[in-house]
């Protein structure tokens, strides 16, 4: 091993150096703690054998310094001492010494001490290698998750701006990928189908289910019960919810979901939707300039066999807005005050910006209600979807 011998007494240095060389080690020497510290910066040593009392920097202080420094590999520290007594011993341990050896050095003792040093250093090496491997795996998973987040984001729909409607949304998962999702599609020119979903739990397994539903619900036409056309859509949301409930309960997943699923009829200017355990949606009525939190409750999907669903109906006119969101927002303290962004406080926050456009509202939420720091480490997935009727 490569050993640094630190002693202010020249004869002691020479004796120790001689013994260590005899044992087959590579030895350098330093005349005090400061000298040793300088030498430790220049080359890599595995073991330091240091005298206790020295001028400039003593053995205890040198040891403390070594322990606090970010050396790449562990340095085994042996304090040489002529001193005895419990207090000295404790001081040495507290400074981070691994071993003590009596002065003057004795070859038999040194050999034994160095053998245990060898053992500890090997253990440290193995540990360091394992940590390195773990770090590598961790980085790979991290990178995978970043890629997955991008994939998930790329599946979300573009903002709408048609002759009938405008939409805007905010989506931010708690840990890269999330169990929240939403989508909308137009089966014909006068109809828009949409859903906002929150899979219970968060993380990878929730995200996988959420992605699968997000991309497949538009095509699982069996769930809709009949063609998505004007004559059927008024009851369709509850039928859809009932069928999805059966599908999820019949599957092998432990997850369930909350949802608002709706169909917008632009010709009749009517919105049909079902509330399945999702937070109360918010409605802005432009004509009366009022904001309403719609206090409608409903069974989640995939939680309970006996669930019954009801379709809600609402007429809309120019400038009205419909806001749906997952419960993730309510676990955050608002940067604007009032505590958590849950029921009453959340309503108040929306009331302040009720006349803003959908897009401005989304901007307000992501930049003013929540700080950058909050957005970076959300306790739960966050999604807000806003429709603005033209």
């Amino acid at each position, binding site marked *: 091993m490569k050993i640094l011998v630190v002693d202010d007494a020249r004869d002691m240095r020479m004796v120790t150096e001689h013994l260590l060389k005899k044992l087959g080690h590579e030895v350098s020497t330093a005349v005090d703690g400061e000298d040793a510290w300088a030498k430790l910066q220049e080359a890599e040593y595995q073991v330091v054998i240091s005298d206790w009392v020295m001028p400039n920097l003593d053995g205890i202080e040198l040891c403390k310094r070594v322990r606090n420094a970010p050396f790449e590999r562990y340095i085994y520290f042996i304090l040489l001492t002529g001193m005895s007594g419990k207090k000295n011993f404790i001081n040495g341990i507290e400074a981070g010494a691994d071993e003590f050896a009596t002065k003057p050095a004795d070859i038999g003792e040194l050999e034994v001490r160095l053998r245990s040093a060898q053992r500890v250093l090997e253990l440290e090496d193995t540990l360091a290698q394992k940590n390195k491997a773990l770090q590598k795996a961790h980085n790979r998973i991290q990178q995978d998750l970043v890629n997955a987040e991008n994939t998930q984001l790329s599946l979300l729909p573009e903002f709408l701006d048609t002759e009938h409607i405008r939409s805007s949304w905010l989506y931010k998962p708690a840990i890269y990928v999330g169990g929240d999702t939403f989508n909308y599609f137009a089966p014909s020119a006068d109809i828009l189908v949409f859903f906002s979903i*929150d899979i*219970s*739990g*968060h993380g990878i397994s929730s995200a996988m289910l959420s992605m699968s539903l997000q991309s497949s619900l538009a095509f699982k036409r069996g769930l809709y019960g009949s063609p998505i056309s004007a004559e059927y859509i008024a009851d369709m949301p509850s039928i859809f919810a009932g069928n999805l409930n059966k599908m999820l309960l019949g599957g092998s997943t*432990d*997850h*369930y979901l*909350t949802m608002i699923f709706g169909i917008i009829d632009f010709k009749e200017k009517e919105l049909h939707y079902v509330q399945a*355990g999702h*937070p*109360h949606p918010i409605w802005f009525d432009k004509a009366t300039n009022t904001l309403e939190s719609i206090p409608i*409750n*409903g*069974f*989640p999907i995939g*939680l*309970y066999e*006996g*669930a019954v669903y009801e379709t809600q109906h609402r007429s809309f006119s120019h400038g009205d807005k419909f806001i749906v969101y997952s*419960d993730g927002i309510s676990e955050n303290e608002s940067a604007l005050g009032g505590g958590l962004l*849950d*029921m009453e406080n959340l309503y108040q926050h929306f009331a302040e910006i009720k006349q803003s456009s959908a897009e401005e509202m989304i901007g307000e939420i992501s930049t003013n209600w929540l700080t950058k720091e909050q957005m970076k480490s959300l306790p*739960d997935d966050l999604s807000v979807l806003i429709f603005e009727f033209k």
Partner: protein
Amino acid sequence: MKLNIVKDTTFSMVSINESRLDASVAPEFKQQMEKIIADGNNQVILDISELTFMDSSSLGATVAVLKAMGPQGKLIVSGASGGVLDLFKLTRMDQVFTLVSDIEEAREYFAETV
């Protein structure tokens, strides 16, 4: 996750001595409850009065516990308040579970029906 169980003559009372029941403890909660049920406690008052927060995962776990009670079992959920009670209502689980406001009311429930 700490559950406290006290056995009475006609029922067992399980208290959740936590303020949060969320995804990080939901599996453990479910597991401990299933063990309690498997040990023969199928007349249970679940005291959740100390809970101030419950998320969707833990609601799912609580429904699983209800299902594990079996047809002969009875589960009374006691002391839901604030956001926890709101969650039961929002998801209509207040219609699926028997909710009572405190232990006294829960006791009466067993006295009347057992």
